[in-house]
């Protein structure tokens, strides 16, 4: 299984954009004829046209059976790369060799025609995506089943709800059976249930030994489907490696988590009535010395500074949600859980959350904060804190080092039962 499926070498793609019209080329003959007449000025005119490097010297290989997630900001070149790989457009220089039958899915419902019935559209869209007619004949029932369109199959698609049309379109695409599948951001369609079904289908394809290059902004989908991540930034490969690592770096670097860099006190995107505001956060060791990160297995004080409009008469409760880079909550810690009511707090002060043995594996985590006074929300800040954790001696002998070992550490022991 070590054969190459895709080999990309020094791939570049340049678009020339006329800033006056925004078009990628002059659209009327007149402009070009005028250009001929004004030949002496032509040099000047051509310098006005902007060159946009959609892809700059991209090189990487994909082995057969590999599932690669392509990530990056809008305009980073992901879609252009897929277009080059699927031969829709030619590279300006360099080359991309493909070894195997390619199926590409850059859009859901390409070629769908609303005047035609569901059945007719299955054949039309299937053929456009590169399926043979006998292949569609064979998979027809599966496609109809998957789409859930059922008895409306003989109805013109213009009478469908937009959800139905999209489901049918995706159902056709999902039954494409190429050796190499290129997919661009198609999971963002349909309702939650259908998206789950699509993800399941994609997972099936990925596990079926097929080569997949998958573009998405849905990081959870990328990490669950792909093993390898390639991060494009302004037309270049910024990172290429295990998907979790690449996605995490991307999320941090691409500014998605920029909030944590700004001062907690100056955050304005927060909820609650404002009777109390968190202003600062510090990690301290058992002696009260500040740390840049928590250490797994070590005792730690997570110290929150707050400010209120005056002395608080009432019961305050504090919530501390530790989340992963994808925003999934891993643990929630709350004074409600431990029953330690914080009664009548001063107008400003510090509250320490003590964790005797920090139970998370090495990595970068994010914390959502909340405070309630007498059960009414006073402050809510999402991704308030970036919490780094470094490896420590949680376990006496060896520490789990691999992402697939999970995020949590808990005390445990083993014995042989007599």
């Amino acid at each position, binding site marked *: 299984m070590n054969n190459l499926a895709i080999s990309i070498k020094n791939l570049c793609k340049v678009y020339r954009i006329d800033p006056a019209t925004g078009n990628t080329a002059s659209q009327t003959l007149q402009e070009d004829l005028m250009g001929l007449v004004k030949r002496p000025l032509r040099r000047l005119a051509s310098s006005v046209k902007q060159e946009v490097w959609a892809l700059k010297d991209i090189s990487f290989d994909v082995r057969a059976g590999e599932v690669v997630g392509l990530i990056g900001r809008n305009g980073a070149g992901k879609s252009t790369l897929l277009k080059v790989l699927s031969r829709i*457009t030619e590279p300006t220089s360099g080359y991309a060799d493909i070894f195997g039958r390619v199926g590409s899915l850059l859009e859901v419902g390409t070629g769908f025609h609303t005047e035609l019935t569901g059945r007719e559209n299955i054949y039309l869209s299937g053929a*456009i*995506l590169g399926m043979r007619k006998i292949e569609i004949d064979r998979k027809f029932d599966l496609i109809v089943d998957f789409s859930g369109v059922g008895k409306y199959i003989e109805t013109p698609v213009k009478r469908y709800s937009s959800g139905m049309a999209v489901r049918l379109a995706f159902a056709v695409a999902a039954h494409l059976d190429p050796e190499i599948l290129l997919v661009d951001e198609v999971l963002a369609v349909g309702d939650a249930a259908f998206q789950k079904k699509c993800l399941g289908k994609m997972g099936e394809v990925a596990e079926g030994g097929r080569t997949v290059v998958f573009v998405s902004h849905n990081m959870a989908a990328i990490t669950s489907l792909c093993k390898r991540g390639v991060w494009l930034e302004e037309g270049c490969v910024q990172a290429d490696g295990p998907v979790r690592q690449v996605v995490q770096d991307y999320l941090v670097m691409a500014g998605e988590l920029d909030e944590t860099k700004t001062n907690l006190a100056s955050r304005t995107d927060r909820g609650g009535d404002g009777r109390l505001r968190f202003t600062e956060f510090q990690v301290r060791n058992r002696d009260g010395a500040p740390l840049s990160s928590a250490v797994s297995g070590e005792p730690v004080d997570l110290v929150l500074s707050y400010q209120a409009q005056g002395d608080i008469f009432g019961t305050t409760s504090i919530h501390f949600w530790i989340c992963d880079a994808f925003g999934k909550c891993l643990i929630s810690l709350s004074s409600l859980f431990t029953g330690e009511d914080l009664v009548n707090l001063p107008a400003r002060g510090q509250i320490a959350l003590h964790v005797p043995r920090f139970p998370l594996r090495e990595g970068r985590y994010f914390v959502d904060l909340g405070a309630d006074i007498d059960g009414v929300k006073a402050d809510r800040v999402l991704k308030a804190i970036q919490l780094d954790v470094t490896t420590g001696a949680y376990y006496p002998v060896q520490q789990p080092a691999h992402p697939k070992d999970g995020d949590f550490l808990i005390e445990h022991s083993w014995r042989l039962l007599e």
Partner: protein
Amino acid sequence: MSLRELWSYRDLFWILAWRDVKLRYKQTALGVTWVILQPILTSGIFAVIFGFLAELPSDGSPYMLFAFAGTLPWTLFAQSLQRAGTSLVSGRELVSKVYFPRLILPIASSFSVLVDFLVGLASISVLFLIYQVPLTWNILAIPGLVLANLLIAVGVSFWVSAFSVHYRDFIYALPFLVQAWMYASPVAYASSIVPEEWSVLYSLNPMVGIIEGFRWSLLGHGLFSWLSIGISLAVGLLVFFSGALVFRRIERGFADVI
């Protein structure tokens, strides 16, 4: 040119041609009747204006029949050219999102017109009954003439559609080209009225041989000459292959510009 690749996409070709036929008559009350109605109405107008008012000769046939035998192949040609010429621009959604040999688009659009033509051809038998004109063995030439007709139409559409990706001007100019070409072809009149000194230039129009051939084939008599058919074929092949080459050359940039 990779003919093998073109061949491997033959299913797409049939489905696209079938789609065009299907879409043309969806939500029309008369449906396929239009296919018969259009050439009949056109030939009726020709018969009145050129036959009755202008009293042009029709080489011995009823003018209506004479005009119909010219309108039928001309409609095939003009419609294929129109549809195939605009096929890339109207299919730009496909061109920018999916890969397939782009040549398929104009060829499929042009073949979809063939269905209309066959219906029209069948309807001419009614006219034959009305005018009591017998069919002759000449009719066997029709398949060959149809192919030559399509060859020219597709060839010209290669040029037009390829350039229309960069310059929409070609789309706007196309109807005028078709109209001028019709008057330069013996559709509404007999080529015998063309003055002698123009006849060499006139016969360079590949549609002259084709349309005269159709008349000869349907009406059983008329100006059939191997020379003009030969010229039609030669010009047709030239336009077709040069068009295909130009198309293939420009094709690389289609998705970026369209």
